[in-house]
């Protein structure tokens, strides 16, 4: 009986819940990435007007991923979602060089936010399937990521469309959330 209750306890131990904020400029690929994570059909993606939220199981964690629209007029609403964030995922369109400066500025402003202080950040350098995509290292340098000193950061090449690199990024997320929690 004791053993049975122990087994029941072990089995029903709730996965650690992680709150993940998925941000970036419009058309960076946030919603495609979210659907890729949730193993959903990615053939009909339209610009996100509000937000999408999905829960994904990964490596013993329940990841609650909040995907907020990235159009300029919507960005002021990002701050409504900052509270209790465990991990920030920032998605960049690696092929859209004309907007690297804009996306870098938005990221820098996010990192200055008090409510996101110390929150680890994963930057997905998305759309690596495109020939015109800049490599992750070039983006890291161009966005001055080396200025980030107060938190862990990682940049991961990926293609949300093909799925390449997405799981590697999520592996980093799961490991560093653990580190933060303890």
């Amino acid at each position, binding site marked *: 009986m004791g053993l049975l209750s122990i087994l029941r306890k072990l089995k029903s131990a709730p996965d650690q819940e992680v709150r993940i904020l998925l941000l970036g400029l419009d058309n960076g690929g946030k919603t495609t990435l979210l659907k890729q994570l949730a193993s959903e059909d990615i053939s009909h993606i339209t610009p996100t007007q509000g937000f999408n939220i999905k829960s994904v199981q990964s490596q013993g964690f329940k990841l609650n991923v909040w995907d907020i629209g990235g159009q300029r007029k919507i960005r002021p609403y990002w701050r409504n979602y900052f509270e209790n964030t465990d991990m920030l995922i920032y998605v960049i369109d690696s092929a859209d060089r004309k907007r690297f400066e804009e996306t870098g500025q938005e990221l820098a402003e996010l990192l200055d936010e008090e409510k996101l202080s110390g929150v680890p950040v994963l930057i997905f350098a998305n759309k690596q399937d495109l020939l015109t995509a800049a490599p*992750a*290292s070039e983006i*890291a340098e161009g966005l001055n990521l080396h200025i980030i000193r107060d*938190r862990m950061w990682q940049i991961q090449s990926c293609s949300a469309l093909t799925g390449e690199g997405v799981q590697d990024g999520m592996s980093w997320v799961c*490991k560093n959330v653990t580190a933060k929690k303890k």
Partner: protein
Amino acid sequence: MYTLLSGLYKYMFQKDEYCILILGLDNAGKTTFLEQTKTRFSKNYKGMNLSKITTTVGLNIGTIDVGKARLMFWDLGGQEELQSLWDKYYAESHGVIYVIDSTDEERLGESKNAFEKMISSEALEGVPLLVLANKQDVENCLSVPDIKTAFSDCAPKIGKRDCLVQPCAALSGYVICSSDYGGYTENN
């Protein structure tokens, strides 16, 4: 009065903070070293599964307290195209740990080149240097004398800074503690 007491409190209890860079080629074991260090020096820190360490393309941070000092470790990605980010951290560094994969003889030259470029930087003049010959738990790995020989022409560039070369196996935690306390210094 509050300000005075507050200042006094800080003065008495503050720890000197030091920033230490962990550098080396990709796959040398920098992040594993950082994880082991955190595990051994931080109470209540439950480290990540070392077999799940993935390639660092960014910055890992670890902070530990040793005596009166607080050590902040910055573990940077070691891929060739990321090494251009290293020098952006030099100005704030109080120490450098350079990790070498003792089993990767093919890339020893590449590691030496990255090392040489690093110690040639003016921003790191006089900054103490710990070189870790990692993966000494693997059979037939290069020994410390082998590695010293391969790096010997860097000796003039090391100049006046303290430099220690230490064997280690970050995966098993071997020598982590003695590395942190040094022991003796030598100029190669």
